[in-house]
Protein backbone atom coordinates (compact mmCIF):
# COMPACT_ATOMS: atom_id res chain seq x y z
CA UNK A 1 0.00 0.00 0.00
CA UNK A 2 1.33 3.36 -1.04
CA UNK A 3 0.82 5.72 1.90
CA UNK A 4 1.38 9.45 2.37
CA UNK A 5 1.46 11.09 5.79
CA UNK A 6 1.03 14.86 5.93
CA UNK A 7 3.19 16.03 8.79
CA UNK A 8 3.38 19.39 10.51
CA UNK A 9 6.07 20.46 12.92
CA UNK A 10 4.70 22.27 15.97
CA UNK A 11 6.10 23.67 19.20
CA UNK A 12 6.19 21.12 22.01
CA UNK A 13 2.92 21.14 23.96
CA UNK A 14 4.85 22.09 27.11
CA UNK A 15 5.95 25.35 25.48
CA UNK A 16 5.15 28.68 27.04
CA UNK A 17 3.76 30.83 24.23
CA UNK A 18 4.95 34.44 24.13
CA UNK A 19 3.69 37.11 21.73
CA UNK A 20 6.38 38.75 19.58
CA UNK A 21 6.98 42.50 19.23
CA UNK A 22 4.90 42.71 16.03
CA UNK A 23 1.87 41.52 18.09
CA UNK A 24 0.95 39.20 15.22
CA UNK A 25 3.33 36.29 15.73
CA UNK A 26 4.87 34.32 18.56
CA UNK A 27 8.46 34.25 19.78
CA UNK A 28 10.06 31.13 18.29
CA UNK A 29 13.68 31.53 19.44
CA UNK A 30 13.59 29.20 22.42
CA UNK A 31 10.90 26.75 21.30
CA UNK A 32 11.42 23.02 21.16
CA UNK A 33 9.90 21.61 17.95
CA UNK A 34 8.12 18.27 17.70
CA UNK A 35 5.96 16.36 15.23
CA UNK A 36 2.38 17.53 15.77
CA UNK A 37 1.09 14.76 18.09
CA UNK A 38 -1.90 13.96 15.85
CA UNK A 39 0.41 13.65 12.86
CA UNK A 40 2.58 11.31 14.91
CA UNK A 41 -0.53 9.12 15.34
CA UNK A 42 -0.85 9.22 11.54
CA UNK A 43 2.77 8.06 11.16
CA UNK A 44 2.07 5.17 13.53
CA UNK A 45 -1.15 4.20 11.70
CA UNK A 46 0.71 4.37 8.37
CA UNK A 47 3.51 2.11 9.62
CA UNK A 48 0.95 -0.44 10.84
CA UNK A 49 -0.68 -0.45 7.40
CA UNK A 50 2.72 -0.89 5.78
CA UNK A 51 3.51 -3.81 8.10
CA UNK A 52 0.31 -5.49 6.95
CA UNK A 53 0.30 -4.70 3.25
CA UNK A 54 3.86 -3.67 2.38
CA UNK A 55 4.47 -0.62 0.22
CA UNK A 56 5.98 2.72 1.10
CA UNK A 57 5.28 5.49 3.55
CA UNK A 58 6.14 8.98 2.32
CA UNK A 59 6.19 11.91 4.74
CA UNK A 60 5.11 15.21 3.16
CA UNK A 61 5.53 18.48 5.00
CA UNK A 62 5.63 22.21 4.39
CA UNK A 63 7.78 24.60 6.37
CA UNK A 64 11.28 25.93 6.89
CA UNK A 65 14.50 23.93 6.98
CA UNK A 66 14.09 22.98 10.66
CA UNK A 67 11.21 20.69 9.64
CA UNK A 68 13.82 18.29 8.21
CA UNK A 69 14.49 17.17 11.78
CA UNK A 70 10.86 16.08 12.28
CA UNK A 71 10.78 14.32 8.91
CA UNK A 72 13.97 12.45 9.88
CA UNK A 73 12.28 11.42 13.14
CA UNK A 74 9.39 9.92 11.15
CA UNK A 75 11.89 8.19 8.84
CA UNK A 76 13.62 6.80 11.93
CA UNK A 77 10.26 5.45 13.12
CA UNK A 78 10.11 3.50 9.85
CA UNK A 79 8.81 5.75 7.07
CA UNK A 80 10.63 5.38 3.74
CA UNK A 81 11.09 8.83 2.29
CA UNK A 82 10.32 12.46 2.84
CA UNK A 83 9.29 15.52 0.86
CA UNK A 84 9.63 19.01 2.29
CA UNK A 85 8.07 21.99 0.56
CA UNK A 86 10.31 24.84 1.65
CA UNK A 87 9.74 28.14 -0.09
CA UNK A 88 9.45 31.65 1.34
CA UNK A 89 6.45 32.25 -0.86
CA UNK A 90 4.34 30.35 1.70
CA UNK A 91 5.12 32.87 4.44
CA UNK A 92 1.66 34.08 5.55
CA UNK A 93 -0.26 31.59 3.39
CA UNK A 94 -3.66 30.55 4.64
CA UNK A 95 -4.81 26.93 5.06
CA UNK A 96 -6.09 26.77 1.52
CA UNK A 97 -2.74 27.89 0.08
CA UNK A 98 -0.91 25.27 2.13
CA UNK A 99 -3.45 22.58 1.19
CA UNK A 100 -2.99 23.34 -2.51
CA UNK A 101 0.77 22.86 -2.17
CA UNK A 102 0.40 19.61 -0.19
CA UNK A 103 -2.20 18.31 -2.64
CA UNK A 104 0.16 18.97 -5.55
CA UNK A 105 2.78 16.69 -3.98
CA UNK A 106 0.19 14.03 -3.09
CA UNK A 107 -1.12 14.05 -6.65
CA UNK A 108 2.36 13.34 -7.97
CA UNK A 109 2.89 10.44 -5.54
CA UNK A 110 -0.61 9.12 -6.27
CA UNK A 111 -0.97 7.05 -3.07
CA UNK A 112 -3.73 4.67 -1.98
CA UNK A 113 -4.28 6.52 1.27
CA UNK A 114 -3.30 9.82 2.87
CA UNK A 115 -3.19 10.11 6.65
CA UNK A 116 -2.75 13.24 8.74
CA UNK A 117 -3.69 14.70 12.11
CA UNK A 118 -7.24 15.97 12.57
CA UNK A 119 -5.75 19.15 14.05
CA UNK A 120 -2.44 20.66 14.93
CA UNK A 121 -1.66 21.70 18.48
CA UNK A 122 -0.36 25.12 17.40
CA UNK A 123 -2.83 27.15 15.34
CA UNK A 124 -5.51 24.46 15.61
CA UNK A 125 -7.09 25.28 12.27
CA UNK A 126 -8.38 21.74 11.70
CA UNK A 127 -8.48 22.30 7.96
CA UNK A 128 -5.52 20.65 6.26
CA UNK A 129 -6.90 17.12 5.75
CA UNK A 130 -10.42 18.00 4.52
CA UNK A 131 -9.02 20.75 2.29
CA UNK A 132 -6.42 18.47 0.68
CA UNK A 133 -9.14 15.85 0.09
CA UNK A 134 -11.42 18.44 -1.49
CA UNK A 135 -8.65 19.66 -3.80
CA UNK A 136 -7.86 16.07 -4.81
CA UNK A 137 -11.57 15.36 -5.17
CA UNK A 138 -11.13 12.41 -2.83
CA UNK A 139 -13.38 11.23 -0.02
CA UNK A 140 -12.15 11.77 3.50
CA UNK A 141 -13.07 10.53 6.95
CA UNK A 142 -12.21 12.60 9.99
CA UNK A 143 -11.07 12.08 13.57
CA UNK A 144 -10.25 8.37 13.46
CA UNK A 145 -9.70 6.73 16.84
CA UNK A 146 -9.30 3.35 15.18
CA UNK A 147 -8.38 2.36 11.64
CA UNK A 148 -8.83 -1.02 9.98
CA UNK A 149 -8.25 -1.86 6.35
CA UNK A 150 -8.66 -4.86 4.07
CA UNK A 151 -6.47 -3.20 1.47
CA UNK A 152 -9.36 -1.93 -0.65
CA UNK A 153 -11.32 0.01 1.93
CA UNK A 154 -10.78 1.55 5.35
CA UNK A 155 -13.05 1.51 8.39
CA UNK A 156 -12.70 4.00 11.23
CA UNK A 157 -14.41 4.90 14.45
CA UNK A 158 -15.16 8.58 14.92
CA UNK A 159 -16.25 9.98 18.28
CA UNK A 160 -19.07 12.52 18.00
CA UNK A 161 -20.79 14.42 20.78
CA UNK A 162 -22.45 11.84 22.99
CA UNK A 163 -21.51 8.80 20.93
CA UNK A 164 -19.54 7.36 18.07
CA UNK A 165 -19.91 6.63 14.38
CA UNK A 166 -18.35 3.81 12.40
CA UNK A 167 -17.48 4.92 8.90
CA UNK A 168 -16.14 3.17 5.86
CA UNK A 169 -14.54 4.46 2.69
CA UNK A 170 -13.25 2.91 -0.53
CA UNK A 171 -9.64 3.74 -1.33
CA UNK A 172 -8.10 6.01 -2.37
CA UNK A 173 -9.11 8.22 0.52
CA UNK A 174 -7.79 10.57 3.15
CA UNK A 175 -8.21 9.93 6.87
CA UNK A 176 -7.52 12.40 9.67
CA UNK A 177 -6.48 11.07 13.04
CA UNK A 178 -7.95 11.78 16.45
CA UNK A 179 -7.43 9.85 19.66
CA UNK A 180 -4.57 10.11 22.08
CA UNK A 181 -1.13 8.75 22.86
CA UNK A 182 -2.85 6.02 24.86
CA UNK A 183 -4.86 4.98 21.79
CA UNK A 184 -2.09 5.04 19.17
CA UNK A 185 0.98 4.51 21.30
CA UNK A 186 3.33 5.77 18.56
CA UNK A 187 6.61 3.84 18.45
CA UNK A 188 9.91 5.43 19.33
CA UNK A 189 12.69 5.81 16.80
CA UNK A 190 15.21 3.03 17.51
CA UNK A 191 18.94 3.69 17.32
CA UNK A 192 19.34 1.55 14.16
CA UNK A 193 16.28 3.40 12.82
CA UNK A 194 17.96 6.73 13.44
CA UNK A 195 21.11 5.56 11.65
CA UNK A 196 19.09 4.27 8.68
CA UNK A 197 17.00 7.46 8.51
CA UNK A 198 20.09 9.49 7.66
CA UNK A 199 20.39 7.65 4.35
CA UNK A 200 16.72 7.70 3.36
CA UNK A 201 15.74 10.07 0.53
CA UNK A 202 14.45 13.50 1.49
CA UNK A 203 13.40 15.74 -1.37
CA UNK A 204 13.10 19.50 -0.97
CA UNK A 205 10.66 21.20 -3.32
CA UNK A 206 10.16 24.82 -4.30
CA UNK A 207 7.00 26.44 -5.61
CA UNK A 208 8.14 25.95 -9.20
CA UNK A 209 8.35 22.16 -8.63
CA UNK A 210 4.66 22.02 -7.71
CA UNK A 211 3.18 23.42 -10.90
CA UNK A 212 1.41 26.11 -8.90
CA UNK A 213 1.37 29.86 -9.29
CA UNK A 214 2.26 32.17 -6.40
CA UNK A 215 -1.00 34.05 -6.99
CA UNK A 216 -2.89 30.93 -5.78
CA UNK A 217 -0.91 30.02 -2.69
CA UNK A 218 1.28 32.86 -1.41
CA UNK A 219 0.78 35.02 1.64
CA UNK A 220 -0.61 37.71 -0.63
CA UNK A 221 -3.25 35.25 -1.85
CA UNK A 222 -4.39 34.49 1.69
CA UNK A 223 -8.11 34.98 2.20
CA UNK A 224 -7.74 35.23 5.95
CA UNK A 225 -4.93 36.39 8.19
CA UNK A 226 -4.13 36.93 11.83
CA UNK A 227 -4.08 40.67 12.48
CA UNK A 228 -3.24 40.62 16.18
CA UNK A 229 -2.53 38.30 19.05
CA UNK A 230 -3.41 38.83 22.67
CA UNK A 231 -2.74 36.86 25.83
CA UNK A 232 -5.72 35.15 27.44
CA UNK A 233 -7.25 37.24 30.22
CA UNK A 234 -5.33 36.96 33.50
CA UNK A 235 -7.28 35.23 36.19
CA UNK A 236 -7.52 37.14 39.44
CA UNK A 237 -5.71 35.49 42.32
CA UNK A 238 -7.89 32.76 43.72
CA UNK A 239 -8.86 32.07 47.29
CA UNK A 240 -7.76 29.06 49.29
CA UNK A 241 -10.66 27.81 51.36
CA UNK A 242 -9.07 27.26 54.72
CA UNK A 243 -9.66 29.54 57.70
CA UNK A 244 -8.64 26.75 60.02
CA UNK A 245 -11.65 24.67 58.96
CA UNK A 246 -11.72 20.88 59.05
CA UNK A 247 -12.61 18.80 55.99
CA UNK A 248 -16.36 19.06 56.53
CA UNK A 249 -16.08 22.79 57.19
CA UNK A 250 -14.17 23.36 53.98
CA UNK A 251 -16.71 21.34 52.01
CA UNK A 252 -19.56 23.35 53.51
CA UNK A 253 -17.79 26.63 52.82
CA UNK A 254 -16.97 25.64 49.21
CA UNK A 255 -20.59 24.73 48.51
CA UNK A 256 -21.76 28.00 50.05
CA UNK A 257 -19.26 30.04 48.04
CA UNK A 258 -20.08 28.30 44.76
CA UNK A 259 -23.81 28.76 45.36
CA UNK A 260 -23.94 32.26 46.84
CA UNK A 261 -20.85 34.06 45.51
CA UNK A 262 -19.98 32.43 42.22
CA UNK A 263 -23.60 31.35 41.57
CA UNK A 264 -22.43 28.38 39.51
CA UNK A 265 -24.27 25.62 41.39
Amino acid at each position, binding site marked *: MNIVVLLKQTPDTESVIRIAGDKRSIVTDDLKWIINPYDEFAVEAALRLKEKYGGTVTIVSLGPQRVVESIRTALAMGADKGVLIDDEVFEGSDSLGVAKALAAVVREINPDIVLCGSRAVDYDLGQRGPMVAEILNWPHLGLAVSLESDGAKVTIE*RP*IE*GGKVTLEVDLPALVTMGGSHAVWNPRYASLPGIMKAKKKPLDVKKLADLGLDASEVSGDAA*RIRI*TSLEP*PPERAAGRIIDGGLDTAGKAKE*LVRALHEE*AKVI
Partner: protein
Amino acid sequence: MADCVCVVSEFRAGNFRRVSFEVASEGRRVADALGLPLYGIAVGSGVSDKAEELGFYGVDKVFVADDAALEHYVAETYVPVMAEIIQGLNPAAILLPASVDGKDLSARLAARLQAGLAQDCTEVVCENGVLKAKRPIFAGKCLAWCEWSQGALPMISCRPNVMDCKAADASRKAAVEKVDAAVPEARSRALSVDLDTSGKVELTEAEIIVSGGRGMKGPENFTILEELARELGAAVGASRAAVDAGWRPHSDQVGQTGKVVNPNLYIAVGISGAIQHLAGMGSSKFIVAVNKDPEAPIFSKADFGVVEDLFNFVPVFTEEVRVLKSTC
Protein backbone atom coordinates in the same frame (compact mmCIF):
# COMPACT_ATOMS: atom_id res chain seq x y z
CA MET B 1 -22.97 43.50 -2.73
CA ALA B 2 -23.91 40.47 -0.72
CA ASP B 3 -27.54 39.49 -0.22
CA CYS B 4 -27.60 37.79 3.18
CA VAL B 5 -25.76 36.19 6.06
CA CYS B 6 -25.94 32.38 6.16
CA VAL B 7 -26.00 30.07 9.15
CA VAL B 8 -25.53 26.33 8.91
CA SER B 9 -27.43 24.19 11.39
CA GLU B 10 -26.69 20.72 12.65
CA PHE B 11 -29.44 18.13 12.76
CA ARG B 12 -29.03 14.76 14.43
CA ALA B 13 -31.50 12.02 15.37
CA GLY B 14 -34.57 14.11 14.68
CA ASN B 15 -33.57 17.36 16.32
CA PHE B 16 -31.40 20.40 15.82
CA ARG B 17 -28.42 20.32 18.12
CA ARG B 18 -28.28 23.24 20.54
CA VAL B 19 -25.17 24.70 18.91
CA SER B 20 -27.38 25.38 15.85
CA PHE B 21 -29.36 27.86 17.93
CA GLU B 22 -26.18 29.49 19.26
CA VAL B 23 -24.95 29.91 15.69
CA ALA B 24 -28.34 31.27 14.58
CA SER B 25 -28.29 33.81 17.45
CA GLU B 26 -24.77 34.91 16.56
CA GLY B 27 -25.71 35.02 12.87
CA ARG B 28 -28.64 37.29 13.72
CA ARG B 29 -26.27 39.76 15.42
CA VAL B 30 -23.94 39.74 12.41
CA ALA B 31 -26.82 40.08 9.93
CA ASP B 32 -28.24 43.04 11.88
CA ALA B 33 -24.83 44.71 11.97
CA LEU B 34 -24.59 44.34 8.20
CA GLY B 35 -28.24 45.20 7.55
CA LEU B 36 -28.91 41.89 5.79
CA PRO B 37 -31.47 39.08 6.12
CA LEU B 38 -30.38 35.86 7.84
CA TYR B 39 -30.78 32.62 5.91
CA GLY B 40 -30.43 29.17 7.40
CA ILE B 41 -29.17 26.00 5.74
CA ALA B 42 -30.60 22.78 7.13
CA VAL B 43 -29.45 19.46 5.73
CA GLY B 44 -30.44 16.03 6.99
CA SER B 45 -33.13 13.38 7.03
CA GLY B 46 -36.49 14.53 8.42
CA VAL B 47 -35.27 18.09 8.91
CA SER B 48 -38.18 19.72 7.01
CA ASP B 49 -40.59 19.28 9.91
CA LYS B 50 -38.31 21.15 12.30
CA ALA B 51 -36.83 23.80 10.02
CA GLU B 52 -39.17 26.64 11.02
CA GLU B 53 -37.77 26.39 14.60
CA LEU B 54 -34.62 28.16 13.44
CA GLY B 55 -36.82 31.26 13.19
CA PHE B 56 -37.21 31.21 17.00
CA TYR B 57 -33.54 32.23 17.12
CA GLY B 58 -33.61 34.88 14.42
CA VAL B 59 -33.36 33.08 11.08
CA ASP B 60 -35.64 34.65 8.45
CA LYS B 61 -35.74 31.86 5.93
CA VAL B 62 -34.43 28.29 5.91
CA PHE B 63 -33.29 26.38 2.85
CA VAL B 64 -33.82 22.70 3.50
CA ALA B 65 -32.30 19.65 1.84
CA ASP B 66 -34.20 16.69 3.27
CA ASP B 67 -33.17 13.26 2.05
CA ALA B 68 -32.84 9.83 3.66
CA ALA B 69 -29.36 9.65 2.12
CA LEU B 70 -28.35 12.62 4.30
CA GLU B 71 -29.25 10.98 7.61
CA HIS B 72 -25.65 10.83 8.80
CA TYR B 73 -22.93 13.34 8.17
CA VAL B 74 -20.26 12.46 5.64
CA ALA B 75 -18.42 15.30 3.94
CA GLU B 76 -18.83 13.78 0.49
CA THR B 77 -22.62 14.19 0.53
CA TYR B 78 -23.08 17.23 2.78
CA VAL B 79 -20.49 19.51 1.19
CA PRO B 80 -21.79 19.48 -2.40
CA VAL B 81 -25.40 19.88 -1.25
CA MET B 82 -24.58 22.82 1.01
CA ALA B 83 -22.23 24.42 -1.50
CA GLU B 84 -24.95 24.38 -4.13
CA ILE B 85 -27.41 26.10 -1.82
CA ILE B 86 -24.87 28.68 -0.65
CA GLN B 87 -23.71 29.54 -4.13
CA GLY B 88 -27.25 30.56 -4.98
CA LEU B 89 -27.51 32.91 -2.00
CA ASN B 90 -24.48 35.22 -2.36
CA PRO B 91 -23.76 35.55 1.39
CA ALA B 92 -21.61 38.20 3.09
CA ALA B 93 -20.55 35.60 5.66
CA ILE B 94 -21.30 32.03 6.68
CA LEU B 95 -21.46 30.94 10.31
CA LEU B 96 -21.28 27.27 11.24
CA PRO B 97 -21.07 25.14 14.38
CA ALA B 98 -17.55 24.22 15.49
CA SER B 99 -18.87 20.86 16.62
CA VAL B 100 -17.08 17.62 15.70
CA ASP B 101 -18.94 17.34 12.39
CA GLY B 102 -19.12 21.10 11.92
CA LYS B 103 -15.35 21.60 11.99
CA ASP B 104 -14.86 18.82 9.45
CA LEU B 105 -17.61 20.20 7.22
CA SER B 106 -16.39 23.80 7.52
CA ALA B 107 -12.91 22.92 6.32
CA ARG B 108 -14.02 21.03 3.25
CA LEU B 109 -16.77 23.52 2.42
CA ALA B 110 -14.24 26.38 2.69
CA ALA B 111 -12.02 24.67 0.14
CA ARG B 112 -14.99 24.07 -2.17
CA LEU B 113 -16.08 27.72 -1.91
CA GLN B 114 -12.48 29.06 -1.89
CA ALA B 115 -13.44 30.89 1.29
CA GLY B 116 -11.40 32.03 4.30
CA LEU B 117 -12.26 29.95 7.35
CA ALA B 118 -11.79 31.08 10.94
CA GLN B 119 -12.26 27.82 12.81
CA ASP B 120 -13.59 27.43 16.36
CA CYS B 121 -14.16 31.12 17.12
CA THR B 122 -15.18 32.43 20.50
CA GLU B 123 -16.12 35.99 19.45
CA VAL B 124 -17.24 37.78 16.30
CA VAL B 125 -17.32 41.56 15.95
CA CYS B 126 -18.50 43.73 13.11
CA GLU B 127 -17.18 47.29 12.93
CA ASN B 128 -18.22 49.54 10.03
CA GLY B 129 -19.20 46.53 8.00
CA VAL B 130 -15.87 44.77 8.60
CA LEU B 131 -15.89 41.40 10.33
CA LYS B 132 -13.27 40.24 12.81
CA ALA B 133 -13.22 36.93 14.63
CA LYS B 134 -11.32 35.83 17.70
CA ARG B 135 -10.07 32.28 18.07
CA PRO B 136 -7.92 30.58 20.72
CA ILE B 137 -4.66 29.14 19.44
CA PHE B 138 -2.22 26.82 21.21
CA ALA B 139 -5.31 25.48 23.01
CA GLY B 140 -5.97 28.85 24.59
CA LYS B 141 -2.43 29.84 25.54
CA CYS B 142 -2.93 32.74 23.12
CA LEU B 143 -5.87 34.44 21.37
CA ALA B 144 -5.77 35.45 17.71
CA TRP B 145 -7.89 38.07 15.93
CA CYS B 146 -8.48 37.20 12.28
CA GLU B 147 -9.58 39.39 9.39
CA TRP B 148 -10.43 38.67 5.79
CA SER B 149 -8.91 40.03 2.61
CA GLN B 150 -10.94 42.21 0.29
CA GLY B 151 -13.31 40.03 -1.71
CA ALA B 152 -12.79 36.89 0.37
CA LEU B 153 -15.86 35.08 1.70
CA PRO B 154 -15.66 34.88 5.52
CA MET B 155 -16.58 31.57 7.09
CA ILE B 156 -16.73 31.44 10.88
CA SER B 157 -17.21 28.26 12.87
CA CYS B 158 -18.47 29.04 16.37
CA ARG B 159 -17.24 27.13 19.41
CA PRO B 160 -20.17 25.47 21.20
CA ASN B 161 -21.21 26.72 24.62
CA VAL B 162 -19.47 30.10 24.29
CA MET B 163 -21.67 32.45 22.27
CA ASP B 164 -24.91 33.77 23.72
CA CYS B 165 -28.01 31.94 22.62
CA LYS B 166 -31.19 34.02 22.26
CA ALA B 167 -34.22 32.96 24.25
CA ALA B 168 -36.48 31.05 21.87
CA ASP B 169 -39.34 33.17 20.50
CA ALA B 170 -41.83 30.53 19.38
CA SER B 171 -44.01 33.14 17.69
CA ARG B 172 -41.28 33.88 15.15
CA LYS B 173 -41.26 31.02 12.67
CA ALA B 174 -38.88 30.99 9.74
CA ALA B 175 -40.08 30.67 6.16
CA VAL B 176 -39.04 27.27 4.80
CA GLU B 177 -37.98 26.56 1.25
CA LYS B 178 -37.29 22.98 0.23
CA VAL B 179 -34.34 22.52 -2.06
CA ASP B 180 -34.29 19.69 -4.51
CA ALA B 181 -30.62 18.93 -4.08
CA ALA B 182 -29.09 15.94 -5.82
CA VAL B 183 -27.21 13.86 -3.24
CA PRO B 184 -24.04 12.64 -4.93
CA GLU B 185 -22.90 9.03 -4.93
CA ALA B 186 -20.34 8.64 -2.17
CA ARG B 187 -17.39 6.35 -1.65
CA SER B 188 -17.70 6.86 2.10
CA ARG B 189 -20.62 5.82 4.29
CA ALA B 190 -21.73 5.53 7.90
CA LEU B 191 -22.00 1.87 8.90
CA SER B 192 -23.40 2.50 12.35
CA VAL B 193 -24.12 5.29 14.77
CA ASP B 194 -24.09 4.61 18.50
CA LEU B 195 -25.45 7.46 20.54
CA ASP B 196 -25.15 7.20 24.30
CA THR B 197 -28.68 7.50 25.60
CA SER B 198 -27.72 7.37 29.27
CA GLY B 199 -27.93 11.16 29.46
CA LYS B 200 -24.19 11.49 29.95
CA VAL B 201 -23.15 15.10 29.35
CA GLU B 202 -20.65 15.78 26.55
CA LEU B 203 -17.52 17.56 27.80
CA THR B 204 -17.45 20.32 25.19
CA GLU B 205 -21.08 21.18 25.93
CA ALA B 206 -21.11 20.70 29.69
CA GLU B 207 -22.01 23.52 32.09
CA ILE B 208 -20.07 21.82 34.85
CA ILE B 209 -17.10 19.46 34.59
CA VAL B 210 -15.52 17.37 37.32
CA SER B 211 -12.07 16.23 36.22
CA GLY B 212 -9.62 13.78 37.75
CA GLY B 213 -5.89 13.39 37.33
CA ARG B 214 -2.97 11.34 38.52
CA GLY B 215 -4.04 11.91 42.12
CA MET B 216 -7.02 9.61 41.56
CA LYS B 217 -4.52 6.74 41.82
CA GLY B 218 -6.59 4.25 39.79
CA PRO B 219 -9.64 3.79 37.53
CA GLU B 220 -11.90 2.48 40.29
CA ASN B 221 -11.56 5.71 42.27
CA PHE B 222 -13.29 7.73 39.56
CA THR B 223 -16.58 6.49 41.01
CA ILE B 224 -16.33 9.21 43.65
CA LEU B 225 -16.06 11.83 40.89
CA GLU B 226 -18.96 10.25 39.03
CA GLU B 227 -21.08 10.51 42.17
CA LEU B 228 -20.19 14.18 42.53
CA ALA B 229 -20.89 14.72 38.83
CA ARG B 230 -24.29 13.09 39.19
CA GLU B 231 -25.24 15.49 41.99
CA LEU B 232 -24.08 18.48 39.95
CA GLY B 233 -25.40 17.33 36.55
CA ALA B 234 -21.79 17.49 35.40
CA ALA B 235 -19.62 15.71 32.87
CA VAL B 236 -16.52 13.83 34.01
CA GLY B 237 -13.18 14.72 32.43
CA ALA B 238 -9.60 13.60 32.95
CA SER B 239 -6.07 14.84 32.61
CA ARG B 240 -3.66 13.32 30.12
CA ALA B 241 -1.91 11.48 32.96
CA ALA B 242 -5.14 9.67 33.87
CA VAL B 243 -5.87 8.86 30.22
CA ASP B 244 -2.34 7.69 29.44
CA ALA B 245 -2.50 5.44 32.50
CA GLY B 246 -5.57 3.83 30.92
CA TRP B 247 -7.90 4.87 33.73
CA ARG B 248 -10.23 6.85 31.48
CA PRO B 249 -11.09 6.80 27.73
CA HIS B 250 -9.36 9.33 25.51
CA SER B 251 -12.71 10.97 24.79
CA ASP B 252 -12.58 12.27 28.39
CA GLN B 253 -9.18 13.96 28.01
CA VAL B 254 -9.05 17.70 28.63
CA GLY B 255 -6.00 19.62 27.43
CA GLN B 256 -3.87 20.62 24.49
CA THR B 257 -3.94 17.09 23.06
CA GLY B 258 -7.49 16.49 24.21
CA LYS B 259 -10.62 18.57 24.38
CA VAL B 260 -10.66 22.29 25.06
CA VAL B 261 -13.60 22.96 27.36
CA ASN B 262 -15.52 26.06 28.43
CA PRO B 263 -17.85 25.14 31.28
CA ASN B 264 -19.27 27.54 33.86
CA LEU B 265 -17.59 25.49 36.56
CA TYR B 266 -14.53 23.26 36.29
CA ILE B 267 -13.59 21.20 39.33
CA ALA B 268 -10.04 19.82 39.04
CA VAL B 269 -9.47 16.96 41.44
CA GLY B 270 -6.03 15.47 42.00
CA ILE B 271 -4.73 17.37 38.98
CA SER B 272 -1.41 19.14 39.46
CA GLY B 273 -1.95 21.44 36.47
CA ALA B 274 0.57 20.71 33.72
CA ILE B 275 0.69 23.54 31.18
CA GLN B 276 -1.09 21.38 28.56
CA HIS B 277 -3.98 20.77 30.94
CA LEU B 278 -4.20 24.42 31.99
CA ALA B 279 -4.43 25.31 28.29
CA GLY B 280 -7.44 23.03 27.80
CA MET B 281 -9.50 24.25 30.73
CA GLY B 282 -8.15 27.76 31.34
CA SER B 283 -11.15 29.48 29.75
CA SER B 284 -13.60 27.87 32.16
CA LYS B 285 -15.63 30.62 33.78
CA PHE B 286 -15.02 29.37 37.32
CA ILE B 287 -12.34 26.96 38.48
CA VAL B 288 -12.06 24.94 41.68
CA ALA B 289 -8.96 22.90 42.50
CA VAL B 290 -8.72 20.12 45.06
CA ASN B 291 -5.20 18.88 45.69
CA LYS B 292 -3.24 17.89 48.75
CA ASP B 293 -0.10 19.60 47.43
CA PRO B 294 -0.39 23.33 48.21
CA GLU B 295 2.34 24.04 45.64
CA ALA B 296 0.42 22.45 42.72
CA PRO B 297 0.36 24.86 39.73
CA ILE B 298 -3.40 24.30 39.34
CA PHE B 299 -3.95 26.61 42.33
CA SER B 300 -2.59 29.56 40.36
CA LYS B 301 -5.50 29.13 37.92
CA ALA B 302 -8.20 28.29 40.42
CA ASP B 303 -10.77 30.74 41.76
CA PHE B 304 -11.22 28.55 44.81
CA GLY B 305 -8.65 26.10 46.08
CA VAL B 306 -8.94 23.39 48.67
CA VAL B 307 -5.76 21.81 50.05
CA GLU B 308 -7.02 18.41 51.14
CA ASP B 309 -6.62 14.74 50.37
CA LEU B 310 -9.23 14.23 47.66
CA PHE B 311 -10.30 10.85 49.06
CA ASN B 312 -11.34 12.55 52.30
CA PHE B 313 -12.72 15.69 50.74
CA VAL B 314 -14.72 14.69 47.66
CA PRO B 315 -17.28 12.41 49.39
CA VAL B 316 -17.95 15.06 52.04
CA PHE B 317 -18.24 17.75 49.37
CA THR B 318 -20.66 15.54 47.39
CA GLU B 319 -22.80 15.17 50.48
CA GLU B 320 -22.86 18.95 50.98
CA VAL B 321 -23.92 19.44 47.36
CA ARG B 322 -26.69 16.89 47.91
CA VAL B 323 -27.88 18.84 50.94
CA LEU B 324 -27.88 22.08 48.95
CA LYS B 325 -29.79 20.53 46.04
CA SER B 326 -32.42 19.11 48.38
CA THR B 327 -33.09 22.49 49.95
CA CYS B 328 -33.38 24.65 46.83
